[in-house]
């Protein structure tokens, strides 16, 4: 591959910059600030694109770093040849990757071609940007280099497949990670953790033997207790059987005693019954004899009747009352004057009312008479006056008529006299009429008064006759009192007679009751004592006792009958309880004792079972832990096996890598020594290259890191190693070498040698060489 030309539109400090590259060495010697490193970076970026795209730091992020100072899009193109073909790659860069453009044209046809993509560098050199930096591109950051997986793979061209060489570091790291995670050497390792857990479980399992011993011991005790319980149960059964046998005998004995007692009781009751029979009428049926309650009720009734009989004297008439009753009965006989008397009282009240009416009428009569007289007097008075005046005027008229001529005065006077006569008639007429009316009223009143008087007289006469019949005061003022006396006396008579009748009825009833009870007593007891109530009480007592004794007697007879029907009396009488060492009481007591012992034994047995259950549970837990331990052991063994395998695998992988590397170490070392000797002009130091292509120098019998050499010598080592890599990596199509001021650390001797080296290299490689120092250019030109 060879660069032909570059055109920079805008890129960092460079703007509208063009450069034609020649074959061999291209010396670009400019002062500081020209943009030499920018140009070197431009070439790299045109091949690989920007680095540090994800970084925020503008110095690390190339896109930002090389943004033109004047802003806007930036980029450019590079023309290059590969084999026989020439291409122009044009890239423009924006703020972000997605605004970048890429174009590749075939220089001969000027057509866009797809021979290479944006990954131009990778596709041209078959190496990534990192490898590019470690080999053909020497930046300002130094000449030193080392291998990566790609370089390893490329320089391992002697091997068939470099993919796994590329993956070596990752594989080794993966195995180491696995080894670390599993390691039994550290507490954090899984095997170690499992071992710890297993140890802990084994500590838990350890008491299993003790527990089993305890369990066996408890089982022995339990079995002994079980045997004890069995014996106790046998003893209990034996005692129970014996008690049952003795019980049977005792039952017969008890029955015998009971039978004899029944017979004795029967005789006693029969005697008692005989005694009670004497108290009762001969041949009386005790069962049919009245109950004590009935007899006591009768006794109470008798006492009550006797009390009632004596009490009738208190409610009967007193002598005085009887005397009054007899007097009144004689006076009134069978009459009942009450109604008549009440009628007369009403009549008398009416008469009194009439009398008050009569008095009123008499007053009105007097007034009417006075009125009549007064009206008559007034009429007479007015008539006299008028007639007197008429007479005067008549006389006067006559005189005048006679004396005077004109006659009219006389006529007038006669006329007035006439008028007066008329006037007298007119004036007296009402008074006469009124007097007449009053007279008429007076006559009517007089007649009414007379009628009332007649009525009063008639009634008084009638009441007087009535009162006199019952010997009562007939004085008119006393009439109502007398009439009320008759009514009262009649009521009194009735009351007295009623009282007398009630007393008689009560006495009769009590007597009748007593007679009935006495008849009952006579019927039941054959006689009536002086105090029948006491006699009845006594009979009640006798009845009670006799009936009780009779009931007991009959019950005993029933019991005897039942017993005789249920038992063989003859056999019972002839059975004797066998004599034994242990009485039934002893056996019962012993049975109770054994039962208690059995209960205690059962409790102990339960306690053993419970304890055994607990131990069994503990043993179960231990068994589970044992299983868990075994499971963990299996897992640990697996992990340990995996660990061992990983350790061995890592060891052999490293060995394999070293074995493989050894195949290309020598070519690398040879190339390295070739270039190193060419630069330094001497071969005095002994350099070593290991399987990892790490260069060391052997001095005073020891391998020393090149880092211990001076910076200048390190650069020589770096350049030699880079050239060794490049030679091995690019046996066919040679890449372009880009060196950005690489020899600043070399001394004059080495600088000369380096420049000489460049000239030799330039025979096979195109070299783009940037330098700031003039003498470098001059030296190279030499």
């Amino acid at each position: 591959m060879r660069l032909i030309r570059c055109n920079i539109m805008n890129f960092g400090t460079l703007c509208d910059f063009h450069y034609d590259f020649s074959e061999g060495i291209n010396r670009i010697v400019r002062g500081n600030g020209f943009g030499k490193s920018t140009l070197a970076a431009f070439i790299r970026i045109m091949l690989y694109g920007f680095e540090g795209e994800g970084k925020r730091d503008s110095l690390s992020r190339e896109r930002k770093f090389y943004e033109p100072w004047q802003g806007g899009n930036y980029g450019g193109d590079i023309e290059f040849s590969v084999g026989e073909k020439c291409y122009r790659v044009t890239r423009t860069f924006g703020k972000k990757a997605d605004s970048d453009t890429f174009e590749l044209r075939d220089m001969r046809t000027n057509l866009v071609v797809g021979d290479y993509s944006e990954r131009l560098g990778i596709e041209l050199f078959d190496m990534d940007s990192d490898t590019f930096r470690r080999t053909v591109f020497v930046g300002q950051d130094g000449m030193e280099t080392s291998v990566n997986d790609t370089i390893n793979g490329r320089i391992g061209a002697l091997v068939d497949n470099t993919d796994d060489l590329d993956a070596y570091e990752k594989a080794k790291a993966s195995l180491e990670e696995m080894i670390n995670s599993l390691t039994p050497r550290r507490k954090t390792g899984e095997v170690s953790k499992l071992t710890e857990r297993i140890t802990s479980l084994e500590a838990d399992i350890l008491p299993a033997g003790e527990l089993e011993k305890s369990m066996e011991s408890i089982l022995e005790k339990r079995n002994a207790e079980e045997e004890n319980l069995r014996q106790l149960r046998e003893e209990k059964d034996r005692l129970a059987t014996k008690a049952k046998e003795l019980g049977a005998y005792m039952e017969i004995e008890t029955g015998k005693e009971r039978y004899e007692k029944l017979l004795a009781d029967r005789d006693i009751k029969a005697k008692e019954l005989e005694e009670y029979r004497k108290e009762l009428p001969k041949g009386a049926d005790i069962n049919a004899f009245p109950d004590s309650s009935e007899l006591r009720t009768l006794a109470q009734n008798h006492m009550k009747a006797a009390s009632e009989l004596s009490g009738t004297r208190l409610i009967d008439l007193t002598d005085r009352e009887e005397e009054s009753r007899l007097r009144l009965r004689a006076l009134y006989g069978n009459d009942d004057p009450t109604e008549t008397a009440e009628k007369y009282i009403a009549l008398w009240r009416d008469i009194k009312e009439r009398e008050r009416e009569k008095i009123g009428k008499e007053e009105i009569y007097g007034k009417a008479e006075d009125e009549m007289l007064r009206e008559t007097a007034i009429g007479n008075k007015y008539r006299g006056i008028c007639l007197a005046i008429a007479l005067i005027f008549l006389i006067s008229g006559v005189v005048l008529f006679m004396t005077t001529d004109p006659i009219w005065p006389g006529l007038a006077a006669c006329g007035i006299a006439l008028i007066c006569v008329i006037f007298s008639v007119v004036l007296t007429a009402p008074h006469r009429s009124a007097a007449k009316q009053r007279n008429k009223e007076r006559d009517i009143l007089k007649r009414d008064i007379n009628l009332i008087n007649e009525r009063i007289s008639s009634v008084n006469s009638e009441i007087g006759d009535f009162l006199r019949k019952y010997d009562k005061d007939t004085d008119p003022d006393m009439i109502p009192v007398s009439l009320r006396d008759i009514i009262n006396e009649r009521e009194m008579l009735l009351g007295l007679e009623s009282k007398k009748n009630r007393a008689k009825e009560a006495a009769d009833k009590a007597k009748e009751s007593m007679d009935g009870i006495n008849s009952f007593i006579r019927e039941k007891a054959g006689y009536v004592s002086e105090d029948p109530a006491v006699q009845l009480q006594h009979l009640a007592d006798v009845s009670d006792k006799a009936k009780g004794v009779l009931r007991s007697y009959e019950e005993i007879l029933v019991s005897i009958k039942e017993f005789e029907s249920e038992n063989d009396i003859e056999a019972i009488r002839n059975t004797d309880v066998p004599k034994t060492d242990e009485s039934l009481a002893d056996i019962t007591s012993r049975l109770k004792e054994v039962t208690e012992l059995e209960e205690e034994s059962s409790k102990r047995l339960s306690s053993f079972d419970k304890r055994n259950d607990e131990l069994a549970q503990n043993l179960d837990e231990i068994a589970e832990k044992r299983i868990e331990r075994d499971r963990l052991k299996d897992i640990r063994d697996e992990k340990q096996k995996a660990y061992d395998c990983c350790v061995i695998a890592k060891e052999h992988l490293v060995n394999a890598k070293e074995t493989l590397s050894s195949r290309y170490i020598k070519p690398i070392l040879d190339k390295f020594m070739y270039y190193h000797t060419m630069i330094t002009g001497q071969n005095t130091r002994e350099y070593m290259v290991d399987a990892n292509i790490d260069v060391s120098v052997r001095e005073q019998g020891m391998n020393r890191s090149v880092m211990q050499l001076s910076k200048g010598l390190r650069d020589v080592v770096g350049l030699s190693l880079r050239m060794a890599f490049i030679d091995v990596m690019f046996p066919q199509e040679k890449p372009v070498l880009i060196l950005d001021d690489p020899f600043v650390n070399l001394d004059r001797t080495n600088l000369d040698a380096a420049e000489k080296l460049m000239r030799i290299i330039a025979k096979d490689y195109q070299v783009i060489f940037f330098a700031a120092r003039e003498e470098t250019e001059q030296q190279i030109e030499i």
Partner: protein
Amino acid sequence: MKIIHCADIHLDSGLSSNFDKEKAKERKAELLRTFVRMTEYAGEHGIEAVLIAGDLFDRDVISATSRNGVIGAIESTPGIKYFYLKGNHDRKDVFGSLSEIPKNLYLFNETWTSYELSEKIRIYGLEFNSVNSASAADTLVTDPSDINIVMLHGQESMSASDKTEVINLKSFRNRNIDYMALGHIHSYKNAELDGRGRYCYPGCLEGRGFDESGEHGFVVLDIDEDRRSVASEFITFASRRFINVDVDITGLDKTNTIIKAVSEKTDASGATTNDCVRVVLTGRTDIEAEKNDAVISKTFENRYCLFRLYDESAFSIDYESYSADRSLKGEFIRAVKNDPTVSEDKKAEVIRYGIKALLGEEL
């Protein structure tokens, strides 16, 4: 007459080797429930007797739940006679602490005990100890006119042995035995004893682990007393099965193709969601094959009640094909191959780790 013959119920087993704590608890309850179901089956199918030929319980000390469950089941089927012969796991006297043993429960001891089940059927039983096991057959006295059923708990053997739990079958030949109801072996076996009788192990009622895989249940004997014949039928009764599936993954180089192979094999085994499945990967895969056991396990763990994956497959490596390989891998494989300190089995593992690392795969 119909009789159930069962054995090795192993109530109160730990079960923690296959199940976690909660699942082990559930499985324990299932064992008890299956025993109770068997008694219900007996009640519903006209069974007149149940022979329990040992190891009803798994340990000396049993839980109250198991004891009460068994007693309750026996008492709730009073018409059925239960003959219980203790095994090597049973405690010496499981029912000793009971104040009253169920009336329909018949026990045996360390001398021959016989019960007359009917006029013609007699049940004999002997619980082994270190003394009586050797002379067991010699001390058995039977009536040839009876139908004789003998209950024992021990390992079958055709020769004499000093081990307590061994039944020398030869010694029981020609002892008028019509049926030997045995217990101790956890899988079903029914074989001829002699010209007259057969011996039978019903196996355990429920499998408890992958070493007890397959069908489990009990045997129903149908005895015709007139014809003097004893017919037996194995009844599958377990609530779930343990199934072992071997999958040869030779030639398979990807996890998904291995999953497919496992799926085909488990489907072919008839495993259902109710079953416990153990898959063992066998065969050889290429050293560069992509095989992820965790992904395989995850794929199946919810498909079954319990899923276990055991990868017993090995890697195959053709060293010859790498002999001329001048790559790092070739160099690495040759280096491992030529390492005399690494065993051949381990070499494949080491190479696999190295190659996985080089391929950038997760180790």
